[in-house]
């Protein structure tokens, strides 16, 4: 077994570009999935019955599907549904990730709001607050404490899950590394480099999640 690690440095541009795409996908997906998750959660909690049922069905469906299947499905179905034949793999991958993470976020927001006991709103209204004031000043500040740690761990899962869009040729980190592997046949070097880059980026994030969870721990 002869190893040639210089291959990693030679292809640093491809790896760097892939890493940038991975980070971009993570941020873009969350930027879509947080507001959409709030909308879905609110529809599920306060919408009229048919809307509530539809929102629940959406959340339950996408939480119970493997993401890799959603990615493939989006790749073939989205161009037909939207009529856009020129949809790029990146846009398709982003849509699949957003569909998935929105469902998880919606559940997080719903659980966060539901975890605040009813009596608190009643107490706030008894003190003369309006319903909106009670929501803004009593429910939301407490719900945020419970939602933030969950969102943080969803973030890390999302960062890792972006690797799955490599199956539809989005040139993020996993795809780029495996491309170089196929061109150079330096399998062990490139796959180890890929794992190392994910580790370098993901490890601090995992530690940050632990810190957030300790900081926001709710004790009752």
């Amino acid at each position, binding site marked *: 077994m002869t190893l040639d690690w210089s291959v990693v440095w030679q292809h640093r541009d491809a790896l760097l570009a892939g890493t940038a795409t991975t980070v971009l996908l993570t941020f873009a997906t969350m930027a879509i999935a947080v507001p959409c998750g709030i909308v879905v959660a609110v529809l599920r909690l306060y919408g009229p019955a048919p809307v509530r049922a539809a929102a629940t069905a959406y959340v339950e469906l996408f939480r119970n599907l493997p993401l890799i299947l959603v990615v493939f499905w989006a790749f073939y179905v989205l161009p037909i549904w939207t009529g856009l034949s020129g949809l790029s793999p990146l846009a398709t991958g982003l849509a699949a990730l957003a569909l998935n993470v929105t469902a998880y976020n919606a559940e997080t927001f719903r659980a966060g709001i539901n975890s605040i006991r009813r009596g608190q709103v009643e107490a706030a209204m008894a003190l003369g607050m309006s319903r909106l004031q009670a929501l803004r000043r009593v429910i939301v500040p407490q719900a945020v404490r419970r939602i933030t740690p969950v969102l943080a761990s969803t973030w890390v899962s999302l960062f890792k899950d972006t*690797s799955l869009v490599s199956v539809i040729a989005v040139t993020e980190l996993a795809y780029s590394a495996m491309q170089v*592997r196929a061109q150079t046949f330096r399998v062990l070097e490139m*796959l180890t480099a*890929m794992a190392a880059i*994910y580790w370098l980026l993901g*490890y601090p994030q995992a530690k940050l999640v632990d810190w957030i969870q300790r900081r926001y721990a709710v004790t009752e």
Partner: protein
Amino acid sequence: MDFDLSVITDHARFLASGVGVTLALAALSGATSLVLGLVVALLRLYGPRGLRHVVVLYIDSMRAIPVLVVLVWTFFALPIVTGLTMPPFAAALIGLTIHLAAYAAEIIRAGIESVRPGQTRAAVALGMSPAQAVRRIVLPQAVVRTLPAFGSLLSITIKDTAIASVIAVPELMRQSETVAGQSFQPIEVYTFAMLVYFLMLFPVTRGVDRVYRRVAHLGRS
């Protein structure tokens, strides 16, 4: 959009074999990661100090690296290191176990830590050895309390087996890709696969919730 379901019925046996492999891989990797996770959790809590750091590093690393990367590395790179080639199923089983055991270990650790230390002290005061106290007082309560978390881990396990399609394990995802490619009817095939995965996963999450509501009182103290 026409929906032609004959592609499903024509390949029913082929797709069903994929379901079988998916369930087998999920059951096996679920069992092995549970065993490895228990060992890792016990080492983290009660092991020698030096080893504890290694175990924490392992757990946090698995939380940082995508399961796709672990699977691809196990299948393509590990044989270069060890000199032993592995069939895809074995590589998937090893990769998934290494990955999921870290999560199992964290769940078990949280369960054990949730049992108040006074209980262990009381058990020791009653004449039990520390090992007995862990086995007879701490673990039985921890098992019940961690049931919901293990339910979602089982659901994650089934979902992660789909990623083994990348290393050509003939499970449902892979078989669907093959049928979709041959028949040129990806929409029918993938929509059908979605339905099958949902039918496998939804009862798991619901079933565990239901069981937990029955036995939750056993974990209280």
